[in-house]
């Protein structure tokens, strides 16, 4: 009886396969080689990192994706890749925003993590830590603002995200980094895209999932390139890569879950981002082309031309257009009076975009938000600059 030949790695045809990559079974060694090669090609061809000594600011959160990003960046800079040893002559700095100040407020059992050993000693990359509250003149205002925001619907998480974004962009521009690198893999980008769409940010279809998109900083019109070099990878690829390359333990704190005080009676603890992550992850398991179909569609979509291209001072995105009154209000008198009051009596209501308005709905002390009272001077400065 003819025995079936055991399947071998599709690439080296020598070893036994350990993981499926884009329908091909590959062994551990070839998998690492594939990831490293993909990362270099992404940086060179898709992210246009081609100049010698080009500066790259890598944003690190301590999560799995950004850990993989830092590890890969270190390997290409120090030519310590397992396979192709060719070096990339780029300057990589790692930026970490320390959220301990707000984590301690919302999570009793929170333990701060120290990544210095990983980034500085293991990866040998310059490491900068910025405390999230440092941007505020009075840091306790930040906690007050978070408590005032609705605990459901990812409002708090979105607020933290936009504060971090301000810190990152400001740091990048002040220190001469034209390229800002984020670690989201393709599956995360697809989930993020759906999350943004569910919050009304349709304009994100044109930029949020690109390998490389240009962002004009509204304060001084400096141009930044926002990069997603891990877009080709899925969650399982990142997890397997880390299992092979890293000894780090990843804590179970999910910031979003805890900022929402674990809203028990709502799906995904009342967190839109988690709901969409679960949705995409589930679909990806049943329909393996989900992530790449979504990303490919997003690349081809076009946006309606806007009458005015001005930015929202909170999220720095371009303010979108409202095409019908019913997108913003209902005709049952429950919110029209409030909207009219805020429009007439606050300084920045008309400058805040649709999605940030949604983030702020149901917040307490709304006037303070729309007057940017207690906000970081940087954000107020941007708001005053914008038309």
């Amino acid at each position, binding site marked *: 009886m003819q025995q079936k030949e055991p399947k071998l790695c599709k690439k080296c045809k020598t070893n036994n396969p350990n993981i499926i990559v884009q329908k091909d079974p590959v062994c551990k060694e070839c998998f690492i080689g594939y990831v490293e090669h993909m990362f270099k090609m992404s940086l060179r061809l898709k992210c246009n990192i081609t100049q010698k000594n080009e500066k790259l600011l890598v944003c690190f959160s301590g999560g799995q994706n950004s850990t993989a990003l830092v590890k890969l960046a270190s390997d290409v800079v120090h030519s310590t890749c397992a396979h192709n040893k060719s070096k990339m002559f780029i300057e990589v700095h790692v930026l970490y925003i320390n959220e301990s100040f707000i984590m301690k407020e919302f999570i009793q059992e929170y333990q701060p993590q120290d990544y210095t050993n990983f980034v500085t000693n293991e990866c040998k990359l310059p490491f900068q830590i910025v405390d999230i509250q440092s941007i505020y003149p009075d840091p306790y205002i930040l906690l007050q603002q978070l408590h005032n925001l609705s605990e459901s619907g990812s409002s708090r998480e979105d607020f933290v995200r936009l504060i971090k974004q301000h810190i990152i962009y400001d740091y990048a521009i002040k220190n001469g980094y034209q390229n800002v690198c984020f670690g989201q893999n393709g599956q995360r980008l697809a989930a993020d895209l759906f999350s943004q769409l569910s919050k009304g940010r*349709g304009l994100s279809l044109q930029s949020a999932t690109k390998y490389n998109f240009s962002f004009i900083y509204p304060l001084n019109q400096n141009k930044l390139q926002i990069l997603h070099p891990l877009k080709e990878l899925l969650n399982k690829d990142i997890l397997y890569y880390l299992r092979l390359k890293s000894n780090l333990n990843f804590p179970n704190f999910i910031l979003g879950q805890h900022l929402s005080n674990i809203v028990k009676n*709502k799906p995904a603890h009342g967190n839109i981002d988690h709901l969409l992550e679960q949705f995409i992850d589930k679909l990806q398991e049943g329909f393996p082309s989900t992530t790449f179909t979504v990303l490919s569609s997003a690349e081809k*979509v076009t946006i309606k031309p806007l009458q005015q291209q001005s930015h929202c001072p909170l999220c720095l995105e371009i303010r979108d257009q409202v095409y019908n009154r019913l997108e913003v209000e209902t005709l049952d008198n429950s919110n029209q009076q409030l909207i009219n009051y805020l429009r007439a009596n606050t300084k920045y209501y008309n400058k805040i975009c649709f999605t940030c308005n949604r983030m702020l709905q149901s917040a307490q002390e709304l006037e303070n938000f729309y007057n940017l009272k207690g906000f970081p001077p940087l954000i107020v400065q941007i708001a005053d600059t914008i038309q």
Partner: protein
Amino acid sequence: MVKYCQSCNVQKAFMVRPKTGNLICQNCFFQAFEDEIHHTIISTQMFKPGEKIAIAASGGKDSTVLVHVITLLNKKYNYGLHLYLLSIDEGIKGYRDDSLETVKQNQITYELDLKILSYKELFNWSMDEVVAQIGLNNNCTYCGVFRRQALDRGAIQLGVDKIITGHNADDMAETFLMNLLRGDIFRLPKSTAIITGDDGDNGIATLPRCKPFKYTYEKEIVMYAHYKKLIYFSTECTYSPNAFRGHVRELIKNLEAIRPSAVIDLIHSCEQLDAPNQNQKMPQKQLCQKCNLLSSNKICKACTLLESLNQGRAKQILQIQE
């Protein structure tokens, strides 16, 4: 403690409004529901006075409420429309035959002319026969394509200017996400279009389809029907598959539970999209060479599907004869 309506602050609240999560009394809810549909119609210039409008009526909750509200608003605000009911009998026993009784009841209640067209008389195939032939895979594709053409044919026979359907905000949000998941970038910008088919590409006239419930939540339609005591048929289609749409539907429900405005926010997101750029090859609108109705190919999808069904039937007859 008595809770009052957050709209009028006078009446006691009787429900939480799904769209806003606010407390509302019955009168304010009915008023807001109808006002918002009226605003949708006026702000989008959906109709012109004197137009003949066919209401696609299935007997379900959406079309029953649609018939009720459009008739009411037509009288109240003097739209000057001539309304007709148009129903399609797909030929599904125990489902469509029952729901059509509800449509006939609506005909009497609202004193409207009713036209019923069946798949059997149009295509010589009922859905029961289609499913017997092809099984439960892709049966929704056949039904959807045939229904679209059947509505067009029925509307032409009635001599109407427009068709209105009961597609609501939840349907639109689902369609938007589904088109994104399937990579259908041509349909993506039109997923939430309130009037489709009115662009008259290449000089080919098409019958516009309008969706007055674009900003109306499905839950509110159900509540409106319930508290107005409207009679509708609420059973799911016999051949409802474990469809891909089911995943998206569940997502929308969960999103609504977390943030009530999420459905409108999805519609708002879709509104930012434009038609694909000229580098993308767009299907050209033309007339089908067989049935002379609108098509994106030489032979339209309905005729193509019919041909495959008829070939299958011919094969069966030959096998029996042998």
